[in-house]
């Protein structure tokens, strides 16, 4: 047996056990894995609501990573663990299935199974003030509930722990990792460009990341035997471009027009910027369905009943009263994580075009730059901003005071909620409710 065959066999055996472990920590140990898969796909994709379609795509990919197809049958997948901002089009074009651990952490929070994983991590030397997404992942790795990867692909943006955790996983699973080193502040340079020297540095940054993508392609081939299929890459980019178009069109309706379609907090769960589904045919369908639903249900401004709020960062994924309360009290008109910040991929220069999108991520820029974009994008008839920042997030929470000052100067009211997305141990709804009520009262004046 050669190394590739040996790894495939080892992965197959391990993933079978790992899926059982995953179901067990979610209280589903009595259900055979193939039945669990069938339960997840009880309805036909085309008959689902846009939001349910999104969930369907994610669930399908999730089970694929454990070698199960949507029918509950075995099908081997080459799995690449990915941190949130690693682009996925190249992965699909090489036949890889992405597995985004931070997304799984939020999934565990939704099923009430995150805190135990966090406690496992804390009992195994992971400090209490580390990012709770990463502690959930670390706990899950220690408890062996995630599918053994073929390889790990991580990037240095936006935060430190999201790349650092791969070191742990790589060591435990004995699988190689590739790290994309993304230059910081290039978006700042782009919007404040003064001379050709600045342009040269922007070009150098894009070249640097382009070069790393080619290195990543070679790395994937070396460790999995999978090769880049240029036709598949073209298709993946065409679907990404289509998805981008529909996401943007849908955003324009929610932000600048009105829709009576019930969005609620589900709007936040598209979290388009973070998704591993860019480059799939189904995600273009999801975003198109969303747009069509919004478009088919127009609403006039005079029918506004609750304040229209732009939402920053993510939401608490654990069972909580806050989002239910907010669902009644506000309308989410825009979401930072759904913002389409990038141009379509250029089909004539795909790799460089993806590198440009990666480098120009506005969230990987100064607080001043990212706040300026928000001020320019949020329409005047938005009543305020709610920013939900985990205290363990240095990147977003650490910029909150500056951001608050800048928004206030621009005449935009903002409420920053110090919370957590996956760890509910500090959740205190009555206190947050008081702050929310005061904020809503203030903006109503």
């Amino acid at each position, binding site marked *: 047996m050669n190394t590739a065959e040996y790894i495939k066999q080892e992965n197959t055996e391990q993933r079978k056990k790992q899926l059982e472990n995953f179901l067990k920590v979610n209280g589903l140990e009595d259900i055979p894995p193939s039945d669990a898969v069938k339960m997840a796909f009880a309805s036909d994709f085309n008959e689902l609501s846009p939001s349910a379609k999104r969930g369907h795509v994610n669930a399908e990919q999730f089970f694929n990573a454990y070698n199960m197809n949507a029918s509950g049958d075995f099908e081997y997948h080459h799995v690449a663990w990915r941190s949130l901002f690693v682009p996925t089009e190249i992965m699909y074009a090489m036949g890889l299935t992405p597995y985004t651990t931070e997304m799984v952490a939020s999934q565990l929070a939704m099923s009430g199974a995150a805190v135990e994983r966090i406690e496992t991590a804390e009992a195994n*030397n992971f400090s209490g*003030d580390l990012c709770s997404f990463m502690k959930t992942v670390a706990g899950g790795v220690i408890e062996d509930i995630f599918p053994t990867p073929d390889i790990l692909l991580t990037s240095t943006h936006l935060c430190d722990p999201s790349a650092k955790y791969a*070191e742990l996983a790589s060591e435990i699973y004995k699988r190689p990792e590739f790290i994309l080193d993304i230059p910081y502040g290039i978006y700042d340079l782009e919007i404040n460009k003064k001379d050709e020297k600045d342009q040269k540095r922007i070009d150098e940054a894009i070249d640097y990341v382009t070069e790393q993508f080619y290195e990543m392609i070679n790395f994937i081939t070396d460790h999995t035997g999978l090769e880049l299929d240029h036709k598949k890459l073209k298709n993946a980019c065409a679907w990404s471009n289509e998805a981008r178009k529909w996401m943007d069109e849908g955003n324009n309706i929610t932000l600048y027009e009105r829709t009576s379609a019930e969005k609620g907090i589900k709007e936040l769960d598209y979290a388009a910027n973070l998704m591993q589904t860019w480059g799939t045919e189904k995600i273009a369908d999801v975003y198109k369905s969303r747009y069509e639903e919004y478009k088919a249900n127009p609403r006039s401004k005079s029918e506004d009943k609750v304040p229209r709020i732009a939402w920053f960062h993510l939401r608490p994924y654990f069972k909580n009263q806050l989002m239910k309360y907010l669902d009644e009290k506000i309308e989410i008109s825009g979401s930072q994580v759904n913002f389409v910040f990038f141009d379509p991929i250029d089909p004539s220069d795909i790799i460089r075009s993806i590198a440009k999108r990666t480098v120009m991520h506005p969230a990987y820029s100064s607080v*001043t730059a990212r706040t300026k974009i928000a001020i320019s994008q949020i329409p005047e008839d938005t009543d305020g901003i709610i920013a939900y920042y985990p205290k363990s997030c*240095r990147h977003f929470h*650490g910029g909150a005071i500056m951001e608050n000052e800048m928004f206030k100067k621009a005449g935009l009211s903002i409420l920053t909620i110090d919370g957590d997305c996956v760890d509910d141990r500090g959740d205190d709804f009555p206190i947050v409710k008081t702050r929310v009520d005061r904020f809503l009262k203030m903006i109503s004046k």
Partner: protein
Amino acid sequence: MEKTGWFCSYTPVEIIDAAGSLPVGIKYDSGAEHEDVLLGDSMCSYVRSCMGGALTNKYDDLNGVVIAHSCECMRRLSDGWGYKQHEIKPDLIHTLDIPKVVSGSSIKFFAGGIKRMKEDLEKKYGEISDDAIRKSIQKYNQIRQTFEKIDELRKKEDTAVTGTEIEQLMSEYFSTDPEKFSKAAFDFYESKKDAVQPADLPRVMIIGGPGNSSLIKTIENSGGLSVVENLCTGIRAFAGESEPKNDPYLELAEIYLEKTPCPRMLGDKARAGIKEISDLAKEYKVDGILYFSMKFCANMQMQWALLKNSDTSEIPIKVMEGDISSEINEREIHSFIKRLKKRRKKKQ
């Protein structure tokens, strides 16, 4: 003389020196941690101290600063400093992005970043020639060579060099002209090269970040000897030496990215960092490791978790979490040193 502040050991101070400006390392004890009203409590205490210091005029004698984008907390320091630039006296601020991996392409990209740093400094201090940079590299090479000799002394069981003395020397390094410091370091070496201290003390390696002014003193007052400090203010403060290259920016980029890594580094370099810890422990005949992890530094917190979880060596590792200015729990250190003493006796 004009002065330029720097914060992170990945800053190529040679460029500042070549500009004719004194490179001033902003240490853990120079700022005002409790005066930071801008970055908030999810930031590490070093960054909060620097921000607080800037907001309360502690760095008014500087003409500029180079802020290395080395981690997410330093990123916010750069943001905060830029945001409050109109209230802060040093008028030059340059943010230098530092790659987190070491490869041919990352070295080349970092060299481009160092060149941009030079161009920014030129706006303030005038032209910086390649020759001036090469001369400065030479000056710092001399310092590095002297420290290598001092380190050799510290590896000996009967070394007369204490951690407290090195801490004092490093403090001078952070604020002294490199030529003057080079002489001071050499004089220190000369004064110690033939001295011996036969006391049988447990030998400790400290791992951490910018440090804490009580840490080394507490270890040595408790009967231990700090023999190697894997800190920003210890061995990580110095890059290694390289073969001279036609392009001094490439030369600097290479030696800085290749130096003993901060926990911020990733991939192979991070793994090399873990291995280096175990190599250092052997070279310096270390009895125990004290990992002083700074609160809110995700890189250190992740590294010590990895280190503890994968540790197979027999050297005890004690982890303490704290801040740059927090008091050190003396009792905890005492009991660690006591444990090391017992182990040492057993080995003998």
